[in-house]
């Protein structure tokens, strides 16, 4: 019950006073721990390599599609 009540209160706050929400959010953001450059570069590299690798395989599959599209395009009812 207690959890629900505070949640409702917060909901009302967010609805009634968007300013309050922005202030709280800003406060929260400044308290957050941000990744340092080294950590960030590592993540960017991992995500980037994954994205490009999967993307290239996917693109090859899309290239296979071109002749298939041509064949299906011929079907008429």
């Amino acid at each position, binding site marked *: 019950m*207690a*959890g629900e009540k*505070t*949640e409702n209160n*917060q*909901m009302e706050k*967010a609805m009634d006073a968007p300013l309050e*929400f922005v202030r*709280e*959010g800003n406060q*929260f*953001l400044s*308290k*957050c*721990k*941000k*990744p340092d450059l080294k*950590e*960030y570069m*590592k*993540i*960017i*590299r*991992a*995500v980037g*390599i*994954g*994205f*490009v690798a*999967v*993307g*290239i*395989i*996917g*693109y090859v*599959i*899309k*290239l*296979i*599609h*071109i002749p*298939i*599209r041509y064949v*299906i*395009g011929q*079907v*008429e*009812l």
Partner: protein
Amino acid sequence: MAGFRLIDLAKPFLPILPEVEIPYEKISFDDKMVYTIFTGLIYLFCQFPLAGLRKDDLPTVNDPLYFFRGIFASEPRTILEFGLLPIFSSGLILQLLAGLKVIKVNFKLKTDRELFQSLTKLFAIAQYFILANIFIFSGYYGSNLSIAQIVVLNIQLVMGGLFSCLLTEVIDKGFGLGAGAMIINTIAVSTNLVSDTLGVSQITIDSEGNNEAQGALINLIQGLRSKHRTLLGGIISAFNRDYLPNLTTTVLVISIGAFVCYLQNYRYEIAIRSTRARGTNQMYPIQLVYTGCLSVIFSYVCLFYIHIGAFILIQLIAKNNQENIICKILGHYENVNNIIAAPTFPLSLLTPPRSVVGGITQQPLSLVFYTLFMVITGVWFANKWQAISGRSARDISRDFKEQSITLLGRREQNMAKELNKVIPTAAMTGAAVLALIATFGELLGLKGKGAGIVVGVSGGFSLLEIISLDFQQNGGESNLGNILQAGMGF
């Protein structure tokens, strides 16, 4: 059994709905990776063009959903016309309703869980069927279709939908890693990014038969030595052509993706302490992006329902006739480039502009309304979702109690209260920031690619987290993991 429950609707369909079986034995990490990637690739392979459309009867109705394509992995005029949208929307909506106790489901019972799962699938397939017929009867596939054509189109679109449901289920049921729809979406987004940047296929762009490459980077290189443009003209056109992907959008999309990556690592750290072992203080991270990109997806699902409702009224009922009363109230569709149907005022308030300049000069109010819509729906959803997703303050404090962990400097009884101060704020702030980034991209005229990359990178990120977690636990057992480690330097 007291009263009627919505999940009982699924009961008669249980025996006929195809379902993926839970794996019999433990699947190794390598196999899971292979299953995950291949499921995504099979999905991409399924983007066949629709068979049975007449060539001479070119449709007059254009694509009203052009800015949803990048987010829900859908391709216009293919079997996957609606992409993963019905799967996302039925999953999100039903879980939200169950969480808010509108639908009564007892998740402790196995039969109830099964029924709920089948209901989700059934709802998705019903949506595929309804959407397919809305599009067929609106004239999107041609104005006078024969009965045979209608039947064939229906079969293709609904079967395509059912097949994508099963593909996501393969990943969800434990053959793959993470959440099925999300991963397939990520793979589709990355493929789009690569084909927009490095795509080599040549597309005819004008009546004289000049070709340009689909990929923006390839086009720049070709532009340096193309015959129909000067050197400078080629370079300028590579950055601002609007009929195919240009370099400006590519750079924007990549920088948005990089920023989302940065944001994913924002975390609020709470000091925790084990009551059993002394002197071992640790940090428990609470991510800023607590609900992930689901809040953005939810906003887009809401937006989709508004747009499809307007499409029914304007195209199906009023036939896009500007004299009709409905069109006078809601606006009508305007033909742009013969591909997309752009809504006019007031429906355009909830439509992202197609370019920055056009956005500021023609629909300045959209900037406000669209942003507000995205932020409000996103924040509302995040606030509800964090409470029902099994990672709420109460769930976490219960887990802590079971592992005899307390917050440093707090009494055990106050744990849920303390966490409850942090988690909803994190979820709501995260959702607001993500919504703002996605909106920022959309308002610059990325036509769905901006929100798409937000969803794609977050999905990729969750996959990365699962991989590194698995790696920490099983420490170098898997061959694939070793290769990844060598390649990426985890």
